[in-house]
């Protein structure tokens, strides 16, 4: 376990270091998420009340679409120069590669959400101040599950020619329940539902996270072996 965490830390730090140097993933992903949000706002805006009801869906759609982009780009770095082969040749537990890539992508996505959330609040007339804490928890839980499942399938894209198609086609049906839970929980929170009700959804999201992470840790090795 210690070896897995140590190697995962090295891989995640490597991803963060490259991103700090290039800014490529966070910049392109943020631009894309902003574009999706602005387009949705312009296309579907009726009045302030309707906008508030639509905001959770738009927020999570933007996160999901941007997440696919981020994961694809993150694994493209392992494809370039066939570095993935070098990683697989290292005497580290295969699960640590999955874990390290997941942590890196989670950090990228949270950075995107820091920009996205205020934008959604402005465009959809939301007062986030009273619910910022619980909303942050929901965002972390929802994004974690999405990244945990997405990283596993994005890793397969390293070896697939139709990689973007495979990722989208396989990933979205799989994470649909978690995505729906995220949307409903966010809608309830923003609609003023009691925290106990939101907490139930948070528990469901937590359960999805655990399932996706465990599946990733177990399946990553076999999926990356011939």
């Amino acid at each position, binding site marked *: 376990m210690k*070896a897995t965490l140590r*190697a995962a830390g*090295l891989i995640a730090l*490597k991803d963060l*270091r*490259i991103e700090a*140097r*290039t800014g490529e993933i966070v910049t392109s992903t943020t631009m894309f998420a902003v574009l999706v949000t602005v387009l949705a706002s312009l296309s579907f805006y009726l009045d302030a009340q309707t906008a508030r009801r639509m905001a959770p869906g738009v927020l999570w759609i933007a996160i999901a679409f941007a997440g696919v982009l981020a994961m694809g780009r993150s694994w493209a*770095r392992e494809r*370039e*120069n*066939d*570095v993935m*082969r*070098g*990683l*697989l*040749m*290292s*005497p*580290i*537990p295969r699960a640590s590669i999955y874990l390290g890539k997941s942590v890196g992508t989670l950090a990228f996505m949270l950075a995107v959400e820091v920009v996205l959330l205020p934008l959604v609040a402005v465009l959809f007339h939301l007062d986030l101040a009273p619910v910022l804490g619980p909303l942050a928890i929901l965002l972390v839980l929802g994004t974690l599950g999405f990244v945990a499942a997405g990283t596993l399938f994005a890793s397969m894209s390293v070896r697939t020619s139709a990689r973007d198609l495979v990722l989208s086609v396989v990933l979205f049906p799989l994470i649909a329940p978690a995505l729906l839970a995220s949307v409903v929980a966010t809608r309830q929170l923003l609609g003023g539902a009691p925290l106990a009700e939101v907490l139930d959804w948070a528990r469901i999201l937590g359960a999805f996270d655990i399932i996706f992470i465990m599946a990733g840790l177990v399946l990553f090795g076999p999926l990356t*072996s*011939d």
Partner: protein
Amino acid sequence: MGAQFNRVRAKDLVKIFGATRALAGVTATFEAGKITVVEGPNGSGKSTLLSLLAQLARPTKGTVLYGKVDGRVGGSALRGSIGVLAHASMVYPDLTGQENIELFAALHGIADPKKRAAELIERFDIGRFLRRPARTYSRGQLQRVALARALVHSPSLLLLDEPSTGLDEKAVSSLIEAVMQERDRGTILVLVTHDMDLANRIADSRIRLERGRVVAGEAA
């Protein structure tokens, strides 16, 4: 660090991908301090054999013995004793050469990655350009960094997969010198190449594969 061994024996290796039989029963022995060149036309199974020796794929049938350790149960300890130098450099283009070497040293569990990187930088005389991102390197520079990366853990088995592709004569000579040094250190070397000039200059033994079988050479 990985397991130590001075002989690798492939026994009756069969590898099937779908309907394609890439290897159809290959038996060969690779000894420490010797360079074995694996020859053959495209599609003969050379790269598949290298993948099986590298523990990157599992044979459909047969086994690879690393010393006395069966490849099917050796796990990560065996991977820690195998190095691969291929045409693709396996280095991150947005990290510097030094960062790449240090990263792979750390992944191989080397206690002081910076010190190990410094040793390799001095050995291969690559300090001049190593603080730039690898993306800016020439093909020859990139291959020298790749060689340092492949040797960062002092592997018992070094697999060379078309390492001279795209290199000029000077870079090939430098590569040969490094490979000869490894041979003198007692490393087991397996070279897959279409470069017959390179093969003729460094081969201690040869095997030839055709349609997944050994058709010529000492192991035939």
